[in-house]
């Protein structure tokens, strides 16, 4: 375990600099945790910036600003002395003068006169590398205020322009995918495939068709390539039987009025689902839209307890676009809905639970912003996110981008193997009761029913406790899977592999050590969006991280003072927030979605705050951004938030054990 000694120098312009030493474990210290430690160590109550001592190309010492985990890693690796030297600059309280400077909106123009007179810039004033030095007089402080404000603008701009974000890895290629399979095509590296593969950068378009079936848990495990083909063929035949069943009834005039209404409802939505996309363009009765209709009606009529609900057409559409085959898309859809049907339940319990988690997550990450929304609340909490959660973000991005978001999100989800050899059930248990001619199905279909009962019961339990046995430890598994890939701990036998997975799930300690060893990789992530938001998350992690460090700190317990300044009109305080649910509970079955939502909220946070948009305007703002968000940006940011959260959860579980 590496121990790096750090010297801090506190610079607030007027007082003497203050020095402190600290030991931290670089493996488990993220940028936000570091910020938190500094807040505690120096009892900081305002915004501040961190810079680290590095050596430039000419061999001279320079202070480079540290804004993210990325920079922290760079600082640790590049530190030339036995110590990592950090410098903390407090940002003076902003008022007055800033308003004048708001006039200069263009962040592209950093005023050279003010910067040269008041700030010594060591490098050749490259706009992306800033070196702060000590401001010594009041005027300098003012100028510094202006300068940092301008820099903030600049960063906001660069953040929005995606100049600063490390891009996603290249998408999973055919060669990568094959490396997770045995010679006969058995996918033996499920975790690695998902987290070291898909999670890192999505999937090549041409490969989606095949990969999505795995991601959506369509196949029973350990199937060879040939077995998968047979499996899909059998399933497809079953699908056609189900479809032709209701079509015949419709033609013969034997369909109930209720069922015909379902068809009408589906039709209304199919006619307005992704019609701008080339796949569904053209006439209303284009073959692909008809396929979508068939698929949805078949599902609705064979799943009477779920039936059809608006939003399902959005969920099915990308499956059809990718599979380009109605029966296969149907099988994928059944598997997807097996996870999502609870969202469409009339009681709304599950989806409300997700809202609660998102709201809590926002409180933890950005108390100020959460308070802003709460203060200007006219509608119910975060209801403008309803569509985000129900459609799992599908509609917030252009369809092709949404596919990237979906596959990356799916890669973090529980691996849910169909419970029987016959695989994904194509009909609901209720359908057996209601169907007049169950004998028309092939024999495997009967076997689905028993297996489905198990699944259904599992789902019910899951909805009660939000933790089903099968999904129980997935996010940890997810984290460990990445760790597995990094430490090249691989397993070759699929049985062994499965055992290995279960063992990981049930024994956090091993996953802890794995995750720890990977912390630097996990955190090679982009900028936190704003200092205030990262400060907010830091504040919440303060209590947990102190155990992992030996800070010679003179700070008292009031380390959240600067946050309290922003709080009004609410009884809650950041300290009294209930803790975030653990990874296997947060998001009620889809933890990563919560972080995608959070990322989308934080992306426009500064605009919403500075334009003082109220809740309603915020909702309108997001409604108008439908299909216009930048997917890569949102994903990259969500991943960094997610990894920070997972890390924090690791500390928590570790400190609980200790």
């Amino acid at each position, binding site marked *: 375990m590496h121990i790096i000694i750090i010297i801090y120098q506190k610079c607030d312009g007027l007082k003497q600099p203050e020095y402190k030493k600290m030991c931290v474990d670089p493996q488990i210290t993220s940028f936000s945790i570091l910020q938190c430690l500094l807040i505690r160590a120096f009892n900081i109550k305002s915004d501040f910036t961190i810079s680290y001592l590095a050596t430039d190309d000419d061999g001279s010492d320079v202070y480079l600003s540290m804004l993210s985990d990325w920079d922290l890693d760079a600082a640790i690796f590049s530190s030339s002395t036995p110590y990592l030297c950090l410098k903390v600059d407090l940002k003076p309280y902003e008022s007055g003068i800033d308003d004048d400077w708001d006039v200069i909106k263009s962040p592209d123009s950093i005023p050279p006169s003010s910067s040269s007179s008041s700030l010594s810039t060591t490098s050749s004033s490259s706009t992306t590398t800033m070196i702060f030095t000590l401001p010594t007089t009041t005027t300098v402080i003012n100028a510094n205020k202006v300068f940092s404000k301008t820099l903030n603008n600049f960063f906001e701009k660069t953040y929005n322009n995606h100049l600063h974000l490390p891009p996603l890895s290249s998408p999973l290629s055919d060669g990568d995918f094959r490396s997770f399979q045995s010679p006969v095509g058995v996918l033996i590296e499920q975790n690695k495939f998902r987290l070291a593969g898909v999670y890192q950068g999505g999937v090549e378009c041409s490969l989606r068709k095949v990969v999505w079936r795995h991601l959506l848990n369509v196949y029973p495990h350990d199937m060879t390539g040939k077995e998968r083909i047979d499996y899909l063929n059998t399933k497809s035949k079953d699908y056609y039987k189900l479809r032709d069943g209701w079509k015949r009834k419709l033609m013969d005039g034997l369909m109930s009025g209720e069922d015909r209404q379902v068809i009408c409802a589906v039709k*209304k939505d199919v006619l307005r689902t992704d019609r701008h996309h080339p796949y569904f363009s053209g006439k209303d009765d284009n073959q692909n839209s008809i396929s979508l209709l068939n698929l949805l009606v078949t599902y609705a009529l064979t799943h009477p307890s779920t039936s059809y609900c*608006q939003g399902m057409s*959005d969920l099915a559409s990308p499956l059809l676009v990718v599979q380009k085959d109605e029966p296969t898309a149907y099988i994928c859809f059944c598997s997807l809905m097996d996870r999502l049907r609870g969202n469409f339940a009339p009681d*709304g319990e599950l989806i409300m639970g997700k809202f609660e988690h998102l709201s809590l997550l926002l409180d933890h990450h950005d108390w100020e912003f959460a308070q802003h929304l709460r203060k200007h609340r006219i509608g119910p909490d975060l209801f403008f996110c309803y569509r985000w959660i*129900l459609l799992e973000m599908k509609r917030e991005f252009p369809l092709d981008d949404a596919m990237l978001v979906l596959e990356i999100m799916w890669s973090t989800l529980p691996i849910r193997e169909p419970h029987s050899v016959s695989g994904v059930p194509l009909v609901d248990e209720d359908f057996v009761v209601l169907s007049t001619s169950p004998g028309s199905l092939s024999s495997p279909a009967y076997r689905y029913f028993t297996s489905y009962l198990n699944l259904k019961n599992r789902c019910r339990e899951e909805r009660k406790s939000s933790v089903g046995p099968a999904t129980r430890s997935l996010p940890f598994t997810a984290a460990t899977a990445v760790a597995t890939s990094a430490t090249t701990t691989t397993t070759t036998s699929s049985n062994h592999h499965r055992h290995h997975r279960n063992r990981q799930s049930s024994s956090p300690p091993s996953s802890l050590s794995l995750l720890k060893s990977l912390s630097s990789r996990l955190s090679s992530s982009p900028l936190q969006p704003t200092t205030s938001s990262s400060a907010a998350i830091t504040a919440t992690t303060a209590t947990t991280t102190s155990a992992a460090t030996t800070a010679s700190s003179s700070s008292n317990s009031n380390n959240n003072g600067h946050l309290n300044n922003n709080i009004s009109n609410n009884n809650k305080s950041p300290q009294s927030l209930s803790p975030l649910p653990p990874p296997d509970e947060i998001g009620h079955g889809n933890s990563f979605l919560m972080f995608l939502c959070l990322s989308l909220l934080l992306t426009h946070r500064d605009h919403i705050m500075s334009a003082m948009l109220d809740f309603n*305007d915020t909702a309108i703002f997001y409604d108008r951004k439908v299909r216009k968000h930048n997917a890569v940006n949102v994903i990259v940011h969500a991943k960094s938030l997610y990894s920070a959260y997972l890390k924090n959860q690791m500390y928590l579980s570790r400190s609980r054990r200790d």
Partner: protein
Amino acid sequence: MSFQGPEEYDYLFKIVLIGDSGVGKSNLLSRFTRNEFNLESKSTIGVEFATRSIVVEGKKLKAQIWDTAGQERFRAITSAYYRGAVGAMLVYDIAKHATFENIDRWLKELRDHADDNIVVLLVGNKTDLRHLRAVMSEDAAEYADRNNLIFIETSALDSTNVEHAFQQCLNEVYKRVADRHFSNVNIGQTTALPTTNLQSTILEKKFCCNS
């Protein structure tokens, strides 16, 4: 990035749009608030919002219009949807008789969840589809009469009557507010935070978001 402050207004009225899916609720909303019509509109999921302000008798009324999915399944948020609404546009499609038949059901839902004094407009949309008309104006007018609703026919596509419909709704709401039809309404009160009940949603005189 704009730094202008929040818009000021005398009254904030919450109006809800209801009716079967596909009758054109979202397009009525976009036509009124943004003068836009989208032939390739998507089904509404959950709730969408928009606002527009108009002036009535020298008072600035800000209409906050809630548009929701036509399908019943999103009823998890039903009560929140109707809470505080002072006006409702009950929309059907003049070319689809079934959507008119369902008006009864929507009216019942309104009676169950909304304030008793809520202003209700019966809106027959899509008058541009003359050749496909399936609901006669007379029948709808008679229905409206019987149920104490204001009746109007509109076309979000060619803009016919859209402005008029919303104006009429807001006028009527204003009238009822002025006559204190809405119980517990405090006219002119400076309420900082609109919360969940009717009175605070109706009136925030010169309400300012950053105050």
